[in-house]
């Protein structure tokens, strides 16, 4: 009998973002004996954020493997096991420590299939994101670095439904997938999600709110900021459409371009630093492929080009806020 907390009966079940991920991992491990996990403190302790709480008791220490502090090693080991036909899922304690495994990810995992046509099905889970007064080394959003490496897929859900469906899709994908879990959402966001098995396709964005005047393209925790801004704009009579990318790479151009065709005005909202990031790419795609539809400049609302500071007033200033989005909406109103 399953010991999993939040076991659904039937129909929908109110589920926290973190529990959606735990459930998906649990269900996938039940489904496929080739799946196993490696990470620091993921065994009896259940992981730094408790995503794998109860797993070792159920799946045993051969499938839930506590690692010494050795990110580079267990990332390379995931590649090796994947090439031997297994489906490893690894956890970096914080996304900030993913850079310790940089070489194995960008040179080994990302480039193996390109040269040999041999698949490397592995998932790298990394709790990322700021807003928790955790300072420069426990708050980073490193998705931009990895989105720039051909051969990797980069996924970053914004809702419990998508988190569950996307991590299942990531596990079933035949490529190395980096799955960033915004830790601010872990215990703050919940919604009804289905009990039955489902996946959400990688590479597909989603319109989270329909509107006709301005498009906000965003992802992860900034979806909440976008929706709040959209509600505020509605009061002023501005109708905002919110597109949630869900996957950072490969980017869903189609949904972005469709929305631009409708509104002609775009704000790219993201927590990563502004320059040379996701916002630049989305802006470039729009400039290249939807120039005719534009009624104003594409605006980026993002974090400044600086590390993430610890002190509350500094972090609040640093992170994009609803007011920053409102200012961008106001600016676009002039066009």
């Amino acid at each position, binding site marked *: 009998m399953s010991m999993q907390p939040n076991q659904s009966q039937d129909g929908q079940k109110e589920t926290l973002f973190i529990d959606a991920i735990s459930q998906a991992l649990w269900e996938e491990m039940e489904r496929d004996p080739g799946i196993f996990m490696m990470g*620091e*403190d993921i065994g*009896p*302790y259940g992981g*730094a954020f408790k995503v794998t709480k109860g797993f070792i008791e159920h799946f045993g220490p051969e499938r839930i493997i*506590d690692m*010494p*502090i*050795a*990110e*580079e*090693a267990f990332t390379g080991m995931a590649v090796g096991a994947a090439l031997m036909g297994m489906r490893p899922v690894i956890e970096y*304690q914080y996304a*900030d*420590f993913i*850079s*310790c495994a940089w070489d194995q990810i960008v040179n080994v995992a990302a480039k193996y299939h390109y040269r040999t046509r041999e698949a490397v099905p592995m998932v790298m889970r990394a709790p990322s994101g700021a807003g928790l*007064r*955790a*300072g*420069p*080394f*426990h708050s980073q959003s490193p998705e931009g670095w990895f989105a720039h490496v051909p051969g990797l897929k980069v996924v970053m859900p914004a809702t419990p439904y998508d988190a569950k469906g996307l991590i299942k899709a990531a596990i079933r994908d035949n490529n190395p997938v980096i799955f960033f879990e915004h830790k601010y959402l872990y215990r703050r966001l919940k919604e009804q999600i289905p009990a039955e098995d489902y996946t959400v396709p990688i590479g597909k964005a989603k319109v989270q709110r329909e509107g006709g005047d301005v498009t906000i393209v965003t992802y992860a925790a900034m979806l909440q900021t976008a929706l709040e801004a959209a509600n505020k704009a509605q009061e002023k009579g501005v109708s905002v459409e919110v597109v949630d990318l869900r996957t950072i790479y490969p980017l869903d151009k189609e949904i972005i371009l469709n929305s631009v065709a409708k509104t002609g005005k775009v704000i790219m909202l993201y927590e990563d630093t502004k320059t040379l990031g996701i916002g630049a790419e989305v802006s470039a795609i729009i400039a290249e492929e939807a120039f005719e539809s534009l009624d104003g400049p594409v605006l980026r609302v993002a974090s*400044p*080009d*600086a*590390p993430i*500071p*610890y*002190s*509350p*007033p*500094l*972090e*609040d*200033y*640093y992170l994009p806020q609803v007011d920053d989005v409102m200012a961008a909406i106001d600016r676009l109103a002039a066009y």
Partner: protein
Amino acid sequence: MQVKPLDLGTKELMDIYYLMRLGRAIEDRLNLLYKGGRLPGAIYLGTGQEAIEIGASYALEQGDVLAPTHRDMMSQLPRGITPREVFLQHYARAGSLTHGKGEDNYQGDLKRGTFATVSMLPDFYPVAAGAALAFKLRREKRVAMAYCGEGSTSVGDWHEAINVASVLNLPVVFVVINNGYAYSTPVYKEMKVANVADRACAYAIPGIIVDGNDIIECYQETKKAVERAREGGGPTLIEAKTMRMRGHAGHDPATYVAKDIIDLWTERDPIVRFENYLTERGLLNEESKKEVVGRVNEAVEDAVNFAEQSPYPEGKEAVGDVYAA
């Protein structure tokens, strides 16, 4: 340069006693403040590790440099980092050594010979080796010292740094505080060697084990390594056996540590042991102990008040200082 003697005199012994008491009192207060929700960030306490935290660092001289990790606030006290600076940092105030940008114990002051570390372990092992390289290239008789926990010795950087330091014969002392656990992971799940110090032979440098709860031994063995490095004898690896007496961080009740292990190590409390040592030598009695504790409490009280009354940085400073002028 004034070189401290291997056998410390009364003044120095009372200095380290004060620093041990100060370290413990600062951490006790940080723990209370954290539990009361008064600090914005996390805390990583080294309670129970006072002997090695202070003993090894005390072996350095002016001009030497120290690279601590997340748990080593106390190692900074002999270098002159003040209680006010510790609390300013935790309270995230503008006047902190990191101007409110860095958290927890990730602070330092190069002028007083300490690096502001980062979270990634053990990133300052190579950095300390680099400082030692600079000293060697400029023919300065200075020494670098790096700390880390035994868990960090599983990381490649640790081995790379020690190997290079050995090959280049650098004036650096590597201190490993073996406190039984890396977060929730016990030593036997981290490594198969019985002692971290056994790894020294792979790099052809001395590997020395010290009782991490005996400050005299911690000081003396580190002192010998520091002076050997200073005289061109190259690096040393020192392993201090001790115990992390609290959770990994403030949020962690450490239920994975058996109570009898804690009880065992409580009996070996490094401060009590040092008090016995001082008392036996007639250097400490109830009165002088009270005097030290009084001074310590005053310093902590002053520091907390000072930090609480200090201003936060202004928001816009978040974007400053990314580059040097």
